[in-house]
């Protein structure tokens, strides 16, 4: 029995949420990066989370179940929604029609995503602190 597996689980949660915060930061930083070409404009990025574990009951081995489920980021996908076209002939990046293309980043969505990620991160930190305290108390058992 490994008592320290919980730290792996929490660590995977922390790193997953931190990847999510990174993508939010990247999306927000590029929210106004316009381009003159719709194919080169920045596209919003979102991480895809997956539980590292087969569902209980379906092809889950005993060791799989005993190992618990941490979380991993299987990839970062780009949002393929079309960029916003804006008429701005004064912009040096504008194409011959005077249009620029703004990224498909929804700032409000990103902000709420950031709050959600931040709360989830705090949850994981709290779990880490509590379990660390409990482990230390267990080590000092009887003294």
């Amino acid at each position: 029995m490994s008592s320290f597996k919980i730290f792996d689980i929490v660590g995977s949660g922390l790193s997953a949420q931190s990847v999510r915060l990174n993508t939010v930061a990247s999306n927000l930083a590029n929210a106004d990066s316009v381009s003159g070409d719709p194919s080169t404009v920045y596209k919003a990025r979102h991480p895809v989370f997956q539980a590292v574990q087969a569902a209980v009951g379906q092809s889950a081995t005993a060791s799989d179940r005993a190992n618990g489920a941490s979380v991993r980021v299987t990839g970062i996908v780009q949002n393929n929604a079309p960029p916003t076209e804006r008429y701005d002939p004064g912009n040096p990046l504008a194409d011959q029609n005077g249009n620029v293309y703004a990224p498909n980043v929804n700032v409000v969505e990103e902000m709420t995503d950031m709050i959600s990620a931040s709360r989830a991160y705090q949850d994981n930190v709290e779990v880490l602190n509590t379990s660390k305290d409990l482990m230390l108390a267990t080590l000092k058992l009887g003294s």
Partner: protein
Amino acid sequence: MALNLDTYLGVHADALKLQSKRMEVLADNLANADTPGYKARDIDFRTAMANTGGSGGAPSPVTLATTNPGHLGTDPTTEANANLKYRVPLAPSLDGNTVDAQQEQAAFADNTVRYQATLTFLSSRIKSLMTAITGQ
């Protein structure tokens, strides 16, 4: 009469293992709070505890018989895995995730207090044993 340490520590050693396992399961749930399709789980503590031979509740009809000293007994961790159940979701989200962060936090806090209580019980047992050994 020889002192058997296993029975001396009583139900608390098993309880500690189960609670530590439950802590992991709840940490799983919180780590996967945003994973699409993840189903929150928890341990049926009463049944798992009863199956380890502790007095946690009604005895389970299905227990492993240990008729030979070589047989594996009912280890709390095995029991915990066998009694891992999916949580009944209060408000499942559209992506199939059934983790309710508040519920999990509450369960985690509950488990923490129980873990500490078990530690206190164990600690006091060990302390009284030390008193007997050192005779002071």
